């Protein structure tokens, strides 16, 4: 692989950009791999990357039914933060956030990590208490977050209306090193690095069945034939239940549509990320100037990658009260992704009832920020067959045993 650098740009500028290589190969599937990862979203690709980088396992295929990064990874609002309440969550989300800081250098691919600061607005007294509690928990966990007053909020976001009659701003929780990154670039950067290590990324190839013998996985059937493997990692977000059924077990997951939208581009007006969890509205400004807005989930199970329109309306109605200046903006695009929701709003990084088959899912509405940490922990689980400290608490049997990692009560929402 030729490295990207300022010299490469200069060199290509002099020869009309005729020398750029393809970022990854598109090989035919082999008959057999050491590890197959199903799903080329951020989590699947990061798992493959750290399998190679941390454990030297490179006889790996990542199998994707559509195009890589075309699932939730390419549909999310790219918020990155690690201000979670429970210790196991803040450990893995902070690991991910820390890896994001140097990911561009690691991958030699500009993922445009922008730690511009992240503010969660407290708009009810319940949220005030909740966020103060989280700030205290974060201090014990070594995660830098702070409580800010309404006056400090106004300094951070001059266009905010603190005195909305329905949703007044009572303060906020601020994480200065939270922010955003370019979602596609995260998938593309990992894919390029995986391909460079000799791994096969096989797109337009749907897994249709899981093969096993004596309770141990032996391979998968796909729309491009049967492919054998010693170990299988299922990393398919909203389709986890479908894959689990193929592998013969049931998951504590429901699949629901979550939507986002972007406005027409405008001049810079907001230079941090603001989340308003009570009203399910999230807002940041992209480098192109569009306001990127995330909404709430639908209430019913759905696999169609489009959500109900009235949720968009609810989100915008509330955001317009908090940010009156956006009331005349035209919205350009709106889309949905299928998020995988667990009962405690925390993910699964787990062994499964099927031998040598592992699952990583349940990131729901908030897994983009976790991609590097999740891949790191999942690679360790797949390589060693046992979870390391980051993944240990996230097994799928916690629901039976009542060991919830409860982030739903903690935050009300995820993202």
């Amino acid at each position, binding site marked *: 692989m030729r490295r990207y650098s300022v010299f490469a740009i200069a060199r290509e500028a002099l020869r009309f950009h005729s020398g750029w290589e393809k970022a990854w190969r598109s090989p035919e599937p082999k008959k057999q791999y050491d590890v197959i990862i199903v799903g080329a979203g951020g989590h699947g690709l990061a798992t493959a990357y750290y399998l190679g980088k941390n454990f030297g396992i490179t006889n790996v295929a990542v199998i994707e039914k559509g195009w890589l990064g075309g699932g939730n990874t390419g549909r999310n609002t790219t918020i990155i933060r690690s201000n979670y309440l429970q210790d196991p969550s803040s450990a893995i989300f902070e690991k991910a956030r820390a890896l994001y800081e140097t990911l561009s250098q690691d991958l030699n691919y500009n993922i445009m990590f922008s730690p511009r600061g992240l503010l969660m607005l407290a708009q009810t007294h319940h949220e005030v208490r909740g966020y103060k509690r989280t700030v205290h928990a974060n201090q014990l966990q070594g995660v830098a977050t702070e409580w800010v007053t309404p006056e400090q909020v106004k300094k951070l976001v001059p266009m905010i209306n603190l005195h909305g009659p329905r949703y007044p701003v009572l303060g906020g929780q601020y994480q200065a090193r939270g922010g955003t990154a370019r979602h596609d670039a995260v998938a593309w950067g990992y894919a390029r690095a995986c391909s460079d290590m000799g791994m096969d990324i096989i797109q337009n190839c749907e897994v249709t069945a899981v093969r096993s013998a004596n309770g141990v996985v032996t391979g998968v059937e796909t729309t491009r034939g049967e492919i054998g493997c010693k170990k299988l990692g299922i990393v398919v977000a909203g*389709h986890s*239940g*479908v894959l689990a059924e193929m592998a013969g077990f*049931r*998951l*504590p*997951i*429901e*699949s629901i549509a979550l939507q986002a939208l972007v406005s027409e581009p405008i001049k810079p007006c907001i230079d941090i990320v603001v989340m308003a969890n009570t009203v399910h509205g999230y807002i940041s400004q992209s480098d192109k100037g569009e306001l990127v807005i995330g909404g709430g989930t639908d*209430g*019913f*199970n*759905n*696999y*169609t990658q489009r959500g*109900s*329109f*009235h949720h968009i309306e609810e989100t915008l109605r509330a955001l317009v009260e908090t940010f009156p200046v956006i009331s005349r903006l035209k919205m350009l695009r709106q889309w949905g992704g299928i998020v995988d929701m*667990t*009962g405690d709003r925390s993910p699964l990084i787990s062994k499964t009832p099927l031998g040598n088959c592992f699952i990583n899912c349940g990131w729901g509405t908030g897994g983009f920020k976790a991609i590097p940490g999740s891949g790191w922990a999942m690679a360790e689980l797949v390589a060693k067959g046992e979870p390391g400290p980051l993944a240990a608490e996230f097994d799928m049997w916690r*629901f*039976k*045993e009542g060991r919830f990692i409860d982030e739903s009560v903690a935050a009300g929402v995820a993202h």
Partner: protein
Amino acid sequence: MLILECPCCGVKAEETELSPGGEAHLKRFGPGSTDEDFETYMFARQNPKGVHFERWRHAYGCGKWFLAARCTATLEVFGTYPAQTTEPPAELIAKIKARRPDWKGWK
């Protein structure tokens, strides 16, 4: 936009009038049940890509609960029926089978 006909009052209600209530025909497990039964009842709900039976409430209408059969992959609605039953009506099952020949059937 999802439109369901409320079998209680006969109104064709659009989504904003309704509130979703999750999987239908659940068998409830409580104290004294096995851990597996309780976990499946509480957390491991049916999550099919395809035919799904659900509870809905006509929240901003007559206020009553009812049940619906819907396809989660296409949003096609097969039908609605009153909640005072432990399984979907036979005509509805026949209708779904006709529309989805490869459907594995109810439970």
